[in-house]
């Protein structure tokens, strides 16, 4: 482990060619599953070494020059993490394959993100260019943060948005520069001890976005964060906190990729959303990690009076994803929604779902989850809907549909619904099906190949959800499904 230094200067990175140069059809697009499969050999200026101990946490905190309360927060979280067992009494035993002492918890070139792409070190810049981030920024984004391993390499927000008072910074900067805004909600939506992985994140978090949207401000274009893992045996633990003040609106998108190493990589984020009175937050994730990544993420929002939080969650990559975006409906007439698409191919387990906690009258929630299992892939829906005593007028609707492509594909559904009192209603429905042979036959006799027909049918299955994605993402989603479906029939 290197001792922390006082400078933010970068050591000159070795300009290597990508260590894996696979043939990629269209590398300019972030969502292509093969597009992320490359990495550069990096010299990291800051490295917390391998394994996890109090020293690791102290190292991270000191290179970030954090206030003492944050270090306390981290150390308390670390204790919790060590004390809590893995949740294997309900979750998959595959979690036991994670060796927490073989992971590198902090790697960076410096703690201060650059404001222009020109300042970003060449190979990091090349990475993001290859993923198409600067291009997307020019085209349709209000602000971009690009995180490379532990820290954001680039962070910028369009001037017009900044002038409205919107704050868009990384977690370190947010806690240091705007404690009055962020400290109040930090770790409040998702307490440290919520689960073992939120405790881990709280101990070693680095990067992520802290966003504040002032009263009444409606951010016209989405803000985007892009998370990139470059190093092997690495754990990425970004922390995101979005506060939408009264009557404001914001759309946030995140994308992620990592190269495919032979060893496993861990990604464990904590994302907290706060929608104050009448605010609207839409959080869009397109998760496309390489399929050796354990993606164990805790995401939850609090919706105050008349506020609306909508999670749009699309999981295509990773070896194991466990992610159940939640909304605590705290104020009257608050609304929560989770739209979820999961695609599990060979060797993948997409364990996703939603959590809706009704805590005020007339709150409504809606969950629509669709999953596709291909080959030996396994997709799981897990959900919690909770309507406690003496509330009235609460409603929940849950729909889960699973599509199984091959004979031995697998899907599970485990919802848990608790309703108290006679003034609320819930409904839950789930179905499992395969693509109808008649449909495939019809398309084949109109001249499509079986593979094309299958792609069309699968796209049709998720079409009503895919349309809710921003145009750029939904087009890519379709393309990606076409790729995944190749060779899946016959």
């Amino acid at each position: 482990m290197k001792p922390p230094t006082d400078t933010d200067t970068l050591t000159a990175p070795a300009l290597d060619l990508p260590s894996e140069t696979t043939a990629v059809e269209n590398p300019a697009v972030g969502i292509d599953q093969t597009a992320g499969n490359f990495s550069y050999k990096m010299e990291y200026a800051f490295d917390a070494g391998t394994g996890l101990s109090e020293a690791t946490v102290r190292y991270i905190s000191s290179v970030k020059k954090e206030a003492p309360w944050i270090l306390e927060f981290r150390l308390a979280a670390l204790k919790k993490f060590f004390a809590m067992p893995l949740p294997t009494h309900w979750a998959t035993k595959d979690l036991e394959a994670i060796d927490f002492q073989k992971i590198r918890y902090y790697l960076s070139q410096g703690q201060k993100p650059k404001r222009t792409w020109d300042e970003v070190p060449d190979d990091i810049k090349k990475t993001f260019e290859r993923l198409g981030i600067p291009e997307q920024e020019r085209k349709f984004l209000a602000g971009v943060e690009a995180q490379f391993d532990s820290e954001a390499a680039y962070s910028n927000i369009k001037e017009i948005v900044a002038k409205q008072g919107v704050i868009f910074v990384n977690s370190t900067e947010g806690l240091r520069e705007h404690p009055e805004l962020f400290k109040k909600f930090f770790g409040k939506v998702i307490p440290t001890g919520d689960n073992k992985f939120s405790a881990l994140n709280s101990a070693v978090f680095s990067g992520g976005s802290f966003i504040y949207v002032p009263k009444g401000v409606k951010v016209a274009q989405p803000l985007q964060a892009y998370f990139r893992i470059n190093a092997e045996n690495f754990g990425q633990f970004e922390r995101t906190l979005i506060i939408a003040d009264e009557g404001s609106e914001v759309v946030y998108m995140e994308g992620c990729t990592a190269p495919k190493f032979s060893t496993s990589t861990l990604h464990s984020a904590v994302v907290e959303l706060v929608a104050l009175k009448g605010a609207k937050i839409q959080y869009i994730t397109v998760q496309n990690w390489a399929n050796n990544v354990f993606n164990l993420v805790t995401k939850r929002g609090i919706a105050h009076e008349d506020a609306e939080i909508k999670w749009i969650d699309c999981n295509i990559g990773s070896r194991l994803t466990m992610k159940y975006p939640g909304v605590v409906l705290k104020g009257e007439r608050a609304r929560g929604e989770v739209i979820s698409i999961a695609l599990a191919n060979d060797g993948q387990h997409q364990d996703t779902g939603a959590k809706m906690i009704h805590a005020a009258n007339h709150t409504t929630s809606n969950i629509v989850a669709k999953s596709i299992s291909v080959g030996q892939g396994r997709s799981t829906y897990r959900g919690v809907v909770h309507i406690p005593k003496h509330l009235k007028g609460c409603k929940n609707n849950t729909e889960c549909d699973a599509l199984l492509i091959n004979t031995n594909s697998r899907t599970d559904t485990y919802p848990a619904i608790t309703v108290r009192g006679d003034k609320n209603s819930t409904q839950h429905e789930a179905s499992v099906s395969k693509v109808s042979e008649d449909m495939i036959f019809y398309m084949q006799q109109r001249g499509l190949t079986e593979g094309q027909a299958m792609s069309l049918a699968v796209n049709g299955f998720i079409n009503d959800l895919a349309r809710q994605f921003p145009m750029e993402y939904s087009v890519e989603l379709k393309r990606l499904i076409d790729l995944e479906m190749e060779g899946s029939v016959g």
Partner: protein
Amino acid sequence: MSATTLTAPPSLVGSFTPEAFAAHLASLPPTLPAWWIARKRAAYARFAALPLPSRTDELWRFSSIGTLTLDGFTLPAAVTSVPHAPSGIPQAAKLVFANGRLFSRQPLSAELSARGVIVDTLQNALVQHETLVREHLLAQPPKLGSPKFAALHEAFLADGAFISVPRDVQLDLPIGIFAYALGATAAVFPHTLVVAGENARVSVVEYFGSGDDTEAQFAAGANDLYAGHGAQIAYIGKQSWSRRALSFQSNSTVVRRDARVQSLNLHLGGRQARHESLSQLAAPGAFSEMLALTVAETGQEFDQRTLQIHQAPNTKSDLLYKNALRGTAKTIFSGLIVVDPDAQKTDAYQSNRNLMLSDDAEACSLPGLEIQANDVRCTHGATSSRIDPEQEFYLQSRGIAKEAADELLTFGFFEEVLNRLVNDDLHEALRTLIQTKFKQ
């Protein structure tokens, strides 16, 4: 039994101490086969060693754990009278058990006996039909979270009903089984084993009752239903234990090729009543219909856990569990459909409907699916809501008072399940039983 199992800590065995077990064994007739006694000893050892369910136990999610107790119960003595058995329908044969002992019986007609139908006590059957009993008695593993209570049942099971219908014999009238727990702290372990041979047809109506509603009793019962190729079994269980009873009932159903089993469980009694039901669709063409109706009142918790396992292609299961909740009642429904790899053409359905009739009631639903084959039709649904205000309004607009309208709509809610019964007399008898409890 080894010495170590005899010194289990009392908290794990409660009233069911090694001494109580020894006394139970001593009370059994000496004619029982040695393998059965050995199984009981092994079961007691398991019972004594296993922990009580804990809060983190996924199969006990939402259940009240703190109120589970093994203390304060006694193995009751024989009785001289039993309450009037509310059968309401003609029966082909009847066995009445009180406190685990045969109390009275109405034998089968000579004609049915001559055709090989057997309705007898387990104690007799263990001697006279040893092979058949050994093959089916408690043969399926407890998969739904109560291995401890299943072991307790096996260890203390004194007597129960054995029904066997041979190949091609079809009974028109149901067989009635009555199991009573009498006495303030009585612990009972009722058991019914039904074996239907190829193309046989039989229906069984089982009634569980107590002396009165003040008795804080304990029941750990089980039934095994085995439907051979093409057989049809209809099983009706009416659970009406004392309102202060703690009850565990576990059902295990095996459905063979082209066989059909319909089971309907009515849950009315108990302060905390758990029912576990396992259906194994073991061969193509098998069909299991699982029905349940619960009327839950203040102070009652009904905990229902089901598992539908499709082990072969072209099998079908259909589950409908309806709960009406009043006062501070709590119900839990946890169901799982498992489709094994290659069990293609499975058609499985699972539905849980909770009717919330009070602002203090609590309904938990955990409808689950685990599907490992793609050419299947599996759906499930769970709803919780109050009486539909539109329907209520319609009835009121036709001049029916609100209370009467609500009662009608609630009875209508139950009818969907009762209508699935083919036997009209039975339908009528059950309707009366439910409406009586509901009007109390």
